[in-house]
Structure formats: structure tokens, C-alpha cells
């Protein structure tokens, strides 16, 4: 009996149920559509627009946004087109967000799985480290890391990763612990041989959903951290730009060119919102009892 319940998948795939629930959540679906759109626009947009993000136009300094000229969103104090800069900044911000999330989730999964699977003293030590990491004021350390290691793009990713993996680690450890118990019971019954397949058939469905939700929530938090760092002048370096950098630049020009702040701020805020609604929607869809 045990091995048949193990191997048998339920008729209605839990994924299909989740998809249905998700589709009914209008805010989440809208957010997903928005995010896909904005990613496409940021990736493809700059190739389609007439201006390059770093080309200065001395005849069009600090032009306010209008549809009449070619600079739809206006220009900055060096005549650079704001629209294309926002899109390029979007590329960077989103890339940082996704890349950092991937690495921190990877680190968190590995850390949590090891801690949960090995257990005992190793587990205690590993989780103590997690607790200490939580207590450390992360932005300061991130600033320090960036100070020491420099402001190279990948170093920024590293610095932010260093403080974003803990939630995932805790989650994965918890799941691994409970699954470990289950696994032993099943293993004992199922012909005395525990196969990695059992582990995969159970861990993957359970964990994947939750990890996905966490990822969706981690991305905006990471983008926010990068934006703060860039806003403080300690993140992404020239000539690259990100939304945080653009907001920083825009904040300097508030009295003369407020649009330089407003457009990137708008893009950032809408993106963050969308990720949050998406995360909520995914969480509700995958775990409906968690209302």
C-alpha cells in the first residue's frame, strides 16, 4: 500500500487547481501582464527608440516631456533622453533583481536543505548563523561590501545576495525537516530502499510552489535594496544606470525638471506593486487555506 500511494499522482493536478485560483485573482493577473510587458519594453524598447541612453544632445537640454518632439519623456541636464534611460535603467534594475533573487534563492535552498537534512549540531550552527545574519543591519554591511569590493555590477549582486537568502533558508530547512521524517517512514515501509526519486516526487512539488512565492516577494525587495544603494550613490556606477540612479539624479533636479524624478519613480513603484500583488496572488493560489 505505501509505495502505491507514493507513486500515484492525484488525478487533478494541484498545479491546475492553483492556476485556476490564480486566474480568478484579477489584481494578480493584471500584475503579471504588466510585469511581462514592462520586461519586454525594457529589453526591446531601447533598440526601437531613436536615441541612445548615453547620447547627449546639447540642443535639447532639460526638455520637458511632450509628444511633439522626439523626446517623449523629456531630457536631462545633458540632453539625454529620459524614456530610453528609464528603459535601460529598467533593464539593469530587473536584471539585478532577477539575478540576485536566483543566487539568493539558490544559496538559501542549499543552506536550508543541508541544515535540515544533516540535522543535529550542524543544523544548530547553520541556523544560528542565520539568526545572526538577521540581527546584522544589512544595508550597512552591503554598503561596506560595496565600499571594499567596488561597485562592479556583479559585486552589487553579491552584496545584496548576502542578505537576501535567509528567509528561503529557513523555509527550506523547515520543509526538509518535515519531509525527512516522512521519508524515513516511507523508506522503512517501501521495501527498505529509499530512492532519491521519492525525495524528488515529494520535495519538488511542495517546495517549488513556496519557493516561487518567495522568489516573487524577494525580487521587489532586492530591487528596492539596489535602488536605495544607487540612490545613495553607492550602487550601480556610471555609465550604467538603474531606476535608483535615475531617481537620485532626478532628485537633484527637482526644482527645474521634476519629470526626471517622476517617471523613473513611477516605473519603480508600479513594478514593485506588481510584484507584491503577484506574490500575494501566487500565495493565495498555491495555499488557499492561508487566507
Amino acid at each position: 500500500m505505501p509505495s502505491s500511494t507514493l507513486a500515484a499522482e492525484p488525478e487533478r493536478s494541484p498545479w491546475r487547481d492553483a492556476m485556476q485560483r490564480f486566474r480568478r485573482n484579477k489584481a494578480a493577473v493584471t500584475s503579471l501582464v504588466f510585469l511581462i510587458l514592462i520586461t519586454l519594453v525594457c529589453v526591446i524598447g531601447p533598440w526601437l527608440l531613436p536615441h541612445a541612453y548615453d547620447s547627449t544632445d546639447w540642443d535639447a537640454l532639460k526638455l520637458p516631456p511632450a509628444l511633439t518632439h522626439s523626446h517623449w519623456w523629456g531630457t536631462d541636464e545633458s540632453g539625454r533622453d529620459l524614456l530610453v534611460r528609464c528603459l535601460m535603467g529598467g533593464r539593469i534594475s530587473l536584471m539585478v533583481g532577477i539575478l540576485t533573487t536566483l543566487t539568493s534563492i539558490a544559496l538559501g535552498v542549499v543552506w536550508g536543505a543541508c541544515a535540515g537534512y544533516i540535522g543535529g549540531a550542524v543544523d544548530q550552527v547553520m541556523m544560528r548563523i542565520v539568526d545572526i545574519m538577521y540581527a546584522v543591519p544589512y544595508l550597512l554591511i552591503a554598503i561596506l561590501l560595496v565600499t571594499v569590493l567596488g561597485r562592479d555590477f556583479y559585486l552589487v549582486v553579491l552584496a545584496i545576495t548576502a542578505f537576501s537568502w535567509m528567509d528561503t533558508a529557513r523555509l527550506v530547512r523547515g520543509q526538509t525537516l518535515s519531509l525527512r521524517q516522512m521519508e524515513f517512514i516511507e523508506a522503512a515501509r517501501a521495501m527498505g530502499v529509499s530512492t532519491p526519486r521519492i525525495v524528488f516526487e515529494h520535495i519538488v512539488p511542495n517546495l517549488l510552489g513556496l519557493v516561487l512565492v518567495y522568489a516573487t516577494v524577494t525580487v521587489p525587495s532586492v530591487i528596492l535594496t539596489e535602488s536605495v544603494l544607487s540612490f545613495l550613490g553607492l550602487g550601480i556606477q556610471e555609465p550604467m544606470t538603474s531606476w535608483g540612479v535615475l531617481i537620485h539624479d532626478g532628485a537633484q533636479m527637482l526644482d527645474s525638471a521634476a519629470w526626471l524624478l517622476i517617471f523613473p519613480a513611477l516605473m519603480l513603484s508600479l513594478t514593485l506593486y506588481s510584484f507584491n500583488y503577484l506574490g500575494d496572488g501566487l500565495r493565495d493560489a498555491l495555499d488557499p487555506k492561508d487566507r
Partner: protein
Amino acid sequence: MLAYTFRRLLITIPTLLVVIGIVYILLFSAPGGPFDSERVVPEAIQAQLMSKYHLDLPYWKQYLLYIGQLLQGDLGVSYRYADWSVNELVSGALPVSLAIGGLSIVLSLLIGILMGALAALFRNSLVDYLVMALGSLGSVLPSFVLGPLLVLAFAIGLQWLPSGGWDHFSWPFMVLPVSLLTLINVSTLARIMRASLVEVMNSNYIRTARAKGLPIRLIVFRHALRPSLLPVVTILGPLAVSSITSALVTESIFSIPGLGILVVNGAANRDYTLVLGLVVLITAMVVLVNLCVDLIYAFLDPRSRA
């Protein structure tokens, strides 16, 4: 109560040591030494500088020396501001940050608790929606977006207040920075207070209080307030940590000469000892705040003292 305090203190010390350790390792494993600058320094002088700053000793010795130095309250010297010690720089900046931070925390607590309580007591009414909408302003937009927007509205648009700067604690320069910090914290505090008070008012012991025929004023202030404040106290710890971020951003936006600007400039200038000293100081402050929060919690909740 005393034993509890002592236990909590013991746990915080390793955290501090670890933080200092991490920071230390980072600093001194950085590519290039602290004296790699644009000017070429003659070898002899470099050797002298190294020995003066103990940089020629093995790392672990340097670490111990540093801890010893810290215990005496000395945060070291700045590499960039050659005539200044970190302590001196801090003593100029700390009061500024404390003034703004302290004021905003007090305001956030007062306003946040009041708003949350009103929203909870008049749940689902117009008061509730208005209060919560107002409150969520601070969490809707990131601090570095909200800040410039405030400047745009009040300094550039209405021209009521300066857009930044500092003048010996004179109040016009304090209004916007304090407002920004307060707006951000109020949203969290109001939300938590509301949820907490709603839950308390639905509890069985409040039902008993109503059954005893007590007037509502008495029920709220004597019976409901203390239990409902517990989650608020609990959030003060994490709030302190997140306030660091908010403070850094605020001081940057409004050019406030506080600890935040010191950190940011120190980082930009790669002034290692300054940043190290500041990180140690701020971490110690956060740890202290967390400890105080724990103690306040234990004081408020008779059940936790058992």
C-alpha cells in the same frame, strides 16, 4: 527580571563580535591597502604608516587590538580625514541623527498608536478607511521616492520649507526630514496597532469586561491598551533596523550632517576605518535598542516573567 536581562545581554555579545569580525575581515581582505591612493607614497614612509596603524601585524592580532580599543570606547582614526578621529566625527554627527531620529520615533509612536486605535475602535467606518489610507502613504512609496515628492510639494511647490540643509537644529530644517521618517514608521505602527486592538477587543476577557458593565473608556484604557501594545513593542526592534535605511536615505535627500552622511561619504571615499567604526557603533545601538525592547515587553506582559 534581572536574570532575564542578563541572559539577553549574553546573547547580544556574540552577535556584536561576529559583526565586527565580518566587517574586519572584509576591510582587510579588500584588494589594495588603505593607503593605495593617487599619490605614490615612498616605501619608507609607507612602512612607518603601516607600523603606526599596526597594519604590519598578523590579522588576528589586529583584530584583538581593535576589540581592546573598542572596549575603551575608541573607534579609531579616520584614514581620510587625517586630523580627525572617528570619535570626533561621530560626536559631531550623532546628536543630529539622534535629534531627528528620536523626534520621529516619538511622533511615530504617538501618531501611529492613536491612528491604529481609532481605526480599530471605529472599525469599518469612514474613520477607519480614512485613517488607514492616510497611514498607508508611508509604505506605499519607497522612502527615496516619498522624500523628493515631499520636497517637490512643500519646498518647491508651496515654498513653505527649505528643501534641505541644516542650521544648528533650527526647526524649519527639521520639519521635512522628521516628517518623512514619521510617515514611513507611522504606516507600519498604525497597521499593527489596528490589527492588534481589533483582536484584543474581540477577546474573551474584553467580553467579560463588557459583561461587568464597565464604561467603554475604562475598557479601552485599562483592559485593552496594554495587551494591544505588545505587538507594537515587538515590531520596534525590526523597525529600528529598518530605520537605519530610512535615516541614511533621509539624511542624503535633505543633506543632514548626521551619521548617515558620514557612512555614505565614508563609503564613497573608501575610508575604511571610518565606515568600520560607524558600522560597529550603529550595530551596537541597534543591539541596545533590541535589548530595551525585550525588557519593555517583559515589563508589560506579566506572563512572560514566569
